[in-house]
């Protein structure tokens, strides 16, 4: 444990970098998945193609992708951009399916009603379909967030900044505590981000949470009075 205390600053710094790189990738994959998932859902033949490509892409091993991507896109192997692009692509592969499934779960009747009361298709998408698909989107985003944070450690293998560096450094210098600290911080970070997403979901989609404690108590009182 001594190593951990004397290197707390180093660990914290790596954790923050890790959080920063993964957050960019998580947000980017959500933003990119929305139009693609929408198109996949709207144009029937596209759906199968998009989902198959996404599934096949997800089977590409992450570390191999990190090595091969720079040959295609042309930035440094050890640059942060390389990691962020790779993580975004993985997140996208997962998220596109959630978006397509979520939008498909919106009842056709509800969509038609929205059109009938005068929503344009843009308004309908943002005010009706996205909110109703919200729980499915959130579930997908939570999976993407946790796996992105865990996957980002792979960058450490080729020297990209983040918690993964604790693994390679700890192995080279035989510091067990360093590797253990890296594992623990990755899991803690994943759990914290996941919890934050759940809270955000409750704040943005108040209809998905059950009655609050006060409301339940009131309900019980009313029930008792009756």
């Amino acid at each position, binding site marked *: 444990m001594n190593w951990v205390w004397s290197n707390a600053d180093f660990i914290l710094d790596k954790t923050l970098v890790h959080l920063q790189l993964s957050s960019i990738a998580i947000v980017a994959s959500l933003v990119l998945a929305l139009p693609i998932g929408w198109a996949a859902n709207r144009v029937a033949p596209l759906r199968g193609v998009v989902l198959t490509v996404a599934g*096949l892409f997800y*089977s590409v091993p992450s570390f191999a*992708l990190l090595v091969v991507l720079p040959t295609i896109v042309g930035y440094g192997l050890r640059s942060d951009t390389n990691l962020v692009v790779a993580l975004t692509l993985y997140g996208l592969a997962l998220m596109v399916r959630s978006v397509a499934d979520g939008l498909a779960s919106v009842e056709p009747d509800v969509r038609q009603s929205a059109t009938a009361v005068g929503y344009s298709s843009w308004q309908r998408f943002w005010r009706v379909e996205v909110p109703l698909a919200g729980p499915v989107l959130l579930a997908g985003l939570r999976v993407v967030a946790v796996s992105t944070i*865990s996957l980002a450690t792979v960058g450490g*293998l*080729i020297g990209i900044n983040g918690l993964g560096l604790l693994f390679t450094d700890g192995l080279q210098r035989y510091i067990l505590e360093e590797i253990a600290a890296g*594992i623990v911080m990755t899991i803690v970070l994943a759990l914290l981000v996941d919890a934050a997403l759940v809270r955000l979901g409750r704040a943005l989609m108040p209809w998905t949470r059950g009655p609050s404690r006060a409301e339940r108590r009131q309900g019980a009182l009313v029930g008792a009075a009756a």
Partner: protein
Amino acid sequence: MNFFLEALAWIVDPAHLSGPDGIPVRVGEHLLYTVVAVALASVVAIPAGYAIGHTGKGRTIAVALTGGVRALPTVGLVFLLALLMGIGSTPPVIAFVVLAIPSVLAGAYAGFEAVDRTTIDAARAMGMTERQIVAQVEVPLGLPLLIGGIRSAMLQVVATATVAAVVGAGGLGTYIFRGLRSNDYVQMVAGSMLVIAVAIVLEIVFAIAQRLVVPAGVTAGRPSDSRAPASRTRTTNEPLQEGTQ
């Protein structure tokens, strides 16, 4: 794109196709890791998953386990075990088994849970024993989802088995990490392309297997029109009773 072509040339170079460091040997090692780890994981996870799926008990633990392992960085686990147990192929295999268990477990119990309860009631009503229900109803009907679980476990292990090379345990990662140490980018790309090829071939093989194991009776009875019916019941064919109240 130049590196791409050079890497392809590297792969087809006869010098890299034979010997203990040749591509066939490394691919073999890589596949061996995958098969051994997934087989060991299946021995533990399939019976456990079936027990959870059949009884419905312990589901919460299984779900938490599946989610929890997703957050676990496998690279760290492989390195940690290597430091604890020494260099060799045992620590990576243990790490890969840990990695593979949740997917197989999820496939096994999800397969059982996906079986329609009325089908099981029907089997019971026909006089099947509990053992027969498991062996003749739940296992065959749950097979596609189980294969799906094994498929994702395989893919995860193929991806992670690259890391075994860092702790001196061979596999296709050997090329990547050797290239990394000696700044031989062509060799790195070649190794990566081989890993990607292995993963995609496995993915396709399993996708086909998953279709083949669907019992004939299930596909035969599938309705051709699977569009969801309208959610509200139509009431318009009855005239509104106006002014009668």
